[in-house]
């Protein structure tokens, strides 16, 4: 009883957060029942809706466009995950080799910047500079004698543009974790390597990279959880009907059929499908990170 009294303030502190999580996370989780209903919003979220079993799932799985959407999502996110791992590692090593401190910090400050800009702003910028008629990039291509490329309107180029621009936006920010890992490497290891006659390249290969190994593996495992997140904000601000074929992803698909076409049941079914698969991936990712790297979240 006395213990309960002592713990009471702690319960009270966490209460507001818990209430908000219940209202905006757990209630929507229960709301996945929409996926099994012919949902009419006027009747309310948990109202007297008509149950139709798995019809919504059957309907969407036979849509040819849905298969394409799944394919696009996995391809786009897989490339983003791979490049999102490799490019920051390379840049962290390059930055670490810089001797001039002022140059180093100004490079770091500059390459972190795109991460903090929204995809609305960056989308607006990309639409302008990638324009086939007078965009900056195509002006450069034309100056070198090439023919203009419609990066955002050509199915051959759209996925490349998504992957490249995402990598560009996040590579600088991604270096932060690796640079921190490099700072943690024991300086004596470099000393020893030098005595053994290792040059800079050898030192990178045998001291720096192994020193970052844990962090790299950890981030690799955790990034698996994003396999079905191909980047809604980015795609939504860059795509158009002409590139749905290669650029439509699960999240944009859910938005269009759900909120624009008002097929709430079908959209929720797709969302549930995504949530379940993501749940498996994220759980496996956290479990392996916990198991192999002793990574603990809470």
């Amino acid at each position, binding site marked *: 009883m006395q213990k309960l009294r002592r713990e009471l303030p702690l319960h009270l502190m966490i209460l507001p957060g818990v209430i908000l*999580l219940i209202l905006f996370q757990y209630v929507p989780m229960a709301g996945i029942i929409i996926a099994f209903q012919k949902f009419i919003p006027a009747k309310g979220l948990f109202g007297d809706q008509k149950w139709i079993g798995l019809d919504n799932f059957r309907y969407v799985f036979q849509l040819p466009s849905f298969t394409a959407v799944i394919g696009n999502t996995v391809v786009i996110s897989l490339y983003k995950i791979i490049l999102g791992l490799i490019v920051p590692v390379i840049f962290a090593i390059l930055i670490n080799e810089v001797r001039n401190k002022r140059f180093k910090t100004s490079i770091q400050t500059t390459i972190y910047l795109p991460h903090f800009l929204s995809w609305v702003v960056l989308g607006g910028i990309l639409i302008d500079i990638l324009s086939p008629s007078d965009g900056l990039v195509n002006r450069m291509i034309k100056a070198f004698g090439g023919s203009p490329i419609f990066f955002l309107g050509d199915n051959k180029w759209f996925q490349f543009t998504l992957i490249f621009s995402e990598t560009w936006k996040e590579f600088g920010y991604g270096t932060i974790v690796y640079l921190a890992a490099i700072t943690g490497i024991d300086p004596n290891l470099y000393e020893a390597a030098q005595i053994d006659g290792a040059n800079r390249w050898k030192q990178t290969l045998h001291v720096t990279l192994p020193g970052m190994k844990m962090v790299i593996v950890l981030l690799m495992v955790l990034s698996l959880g994003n396999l079905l997140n191909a980047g809604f904000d980015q795609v939504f601000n860059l795509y158009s009907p002409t590139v749905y074929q290669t650029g439509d992803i699960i999240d944009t698909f859910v938005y269009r059929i759900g909120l624009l076409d008002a097929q709430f049941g079908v959209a929720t079914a797709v969302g549930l499908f995504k949530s379940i698969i993501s749940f498996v991936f994220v759980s496996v990712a956290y479990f392996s990170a916990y198991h192999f790297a002793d990574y603990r979240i809470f």
Partner: protein
Amino acid sequence: MQAKPKSKPFSWFSVINTIILTLAALSCLVPIIHIAAISFSSSSAAATGIVTFWPVDFSLNSYQYVIKRAQFWQSMLVSLERITLGGGINLLLIILSSFPLSKERHEFRARSFYAWLFFITMLFSGGLIPWYMAIRQYKLLDSIWALVLPGAVPVFSVILMLNFFRQIPKELSEAACIDGAGQWRILWQIYVPTSTPAIATVLLFALVGHWNSWFDGLILMNNPDHYPLQSYIQTIVVQRTYSMLSREEIQQLATISDRTLRSAQIFLGSLPIILVYPFLQRYFVKGIVLGGVKG
């Protein structure tokens, strides 16, 4: 002792490395400079595609136009309201939730129950439609609270904060406890004052997050008067919807190029971040390192 391998005064590697890094950094700046240059150019110069990194035929027309638009100021106001209210609520809830979660099990027996409650939200979500329907059910559509409450507990920041709280020596709170201080006093008078770096980090994450959010505004606000700035820019710049404009505005638009106008609004949308970012950057960096690995 040097933490880095010693180098010769000159090496080809350093030269190439400097070039690569400079190009990478330029690639992050050039697009923004280009957009700014277009926004300050005359419409004819922008339309003929001769503007590169410096305004051609300098003009403030597009800014004058934007500044006269009531819709722009209206959404700016919504954004300011949102970041103040949302940032404050986020910070309060982060502090209040992470303190109990930072306790050991013997200090707070329900800790693991609550930790799971928070953790599960990182594993599973109901998806867009149920989320939207819940907010609709609560009658929050078209209200500022719809932009503030659904994301009021950023779990990632809670984790960052609780990890920071755990590093505070237990002796401090034990001593305070002996002196008769309750949990509330320990939190506000010991934990919060010693955690200013972490608090600065999570507050900045919250403010930038609120400033940059656009999708929730777009779908949860039916009346464009309630759009925050980024949602407004999204409709003007990306969707290019002009249905919100009055007839006079459309006529006026004919005299300014669409392109300079869009560039001006993009630039204004990114300006607050660009201005405060260099000063606050170290907090972000510190935060990521503090919070361990980003999920």
